[in-house]
């Protein structure tokens, strides 16, 4: 794999994570339990779509002058490079916030490393996104603690959410040829090297939330290399892409 191809894969991984999670979170718009959370979730989703424009915009430049929209709306499921965690359906409000927290914690640590990237464009995107994600993590972390250490019902739901989502955490720290090439170029860190910091951060918050981290380190994989997505991604894309599919080139 040459460096340009690896760089493109890396950018798709970053951009697809925020694109797919941003879309999932946007599904709450108008449905959240209270107005304040509805607005906050929509803001989070918009932040992530904004970050997607930067990552996929850069990916498009490298990939022969495509636009971020081309990449977002005209690829099929097997071309996506997001981790499986972000395509797991929302479930209830608690699971949505648990998924957000587990992703935000990885995201903020990752962006912190990318701010020191040897590629100035990557460092600039990371610096901008990092401010938004600092807030996302503060909010999702506080909500996980509030619900985990809340009523019996909210505690049980958060523990179920954690049990369900934990097997999707490991994929964020897996490495392959793309990562090796990015490490060699000084563009991005080895994902495995983020794990200790992640475990410390997540452990601290989940302990405060009176939740128990499952012991198994089993990890579902296949999203970030596109080998095998879950069945959920295809359904999600039919919603997200239908307009460009039905009316190619439509603009407003």
């Amino acid at each position, binding site marked *: 794999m040459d460096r340009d191809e690896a760089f493109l894969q890396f950018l798709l991984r970053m951009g697809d994570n925020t694109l797919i999670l941003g879309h999932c979170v946007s599904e709450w718009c108008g449905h959240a339990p*209270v*107005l*304040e959370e509805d*607005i*906050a979730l929509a*803001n989070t989703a918009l932040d992530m779509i904004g970050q997607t424009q930067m990552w996929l915009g850069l990916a498009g430049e490298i990939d022969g002058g495509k636009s971020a929209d081309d990449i977002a709306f005209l690829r099929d499921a097997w071309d996506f490079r997001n981790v499986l965690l972000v395509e797991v359906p929302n479930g209830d409000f608690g699971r949505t916030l648990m998924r957000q927290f587990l992703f935000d914690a990885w995201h903020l640590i990752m962006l912190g490393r990318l701010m020191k990237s040897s590629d100035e464009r990557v460092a600039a995107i990371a610096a901008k996104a990092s401010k938004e994600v600092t*807030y996302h993590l*503060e909010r999702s972390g506080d909500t996980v603690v*509030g619900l985990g250490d809340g009523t019996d019902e909210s505690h049980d739901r958060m523990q179920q959410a954690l049990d369900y989502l934990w097997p999707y955490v490991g994929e964020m720290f897996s490495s392959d040829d793309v990562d090796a090439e990015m490490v060699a170029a000084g563009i991005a860190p080895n994902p495995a090297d983020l794990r200790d910091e992640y475990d410390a951060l997540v452990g601290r918050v989940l302990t405060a939330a009176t939740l128990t981290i499952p012991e198994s380190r089993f990890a579902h994989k296949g999203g970030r290399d596109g080998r095998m997505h879950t069945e959920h991604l295809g359904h999600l894309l039919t919603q997200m892409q239908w307009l460009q599919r039905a009316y190619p080139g439509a603009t407003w």
Partner: protein
Amino acid sequence: MNNEWPLWEIFIRGQHGMSHRHVGSLHAPDAEMAIKNARDVYTRRNEGVSIWVVEANNITASSPSDKGPLYEPSESKVYRHPTFFDIPDEVGAM
């Protein structure tokens, strides 16, 4: 049992040097979340540099029925208003 979150009144300072201004209210479980909710509900478009939140319960308001005794006595006393001075143009807006 009341399952509703308490109501909070939100005050935002728009720019340095200006005072905090009441912008509205929202619900939140505690003061920290009220600040976060205020950030999402009221400062999304760069409206503020500082947020105050006050639980609405803690605000004591004057009663509308006291309007007469509280405010009317000042209506007929124009001499309380500093409107009888000529202000030089150089002073500008007051």
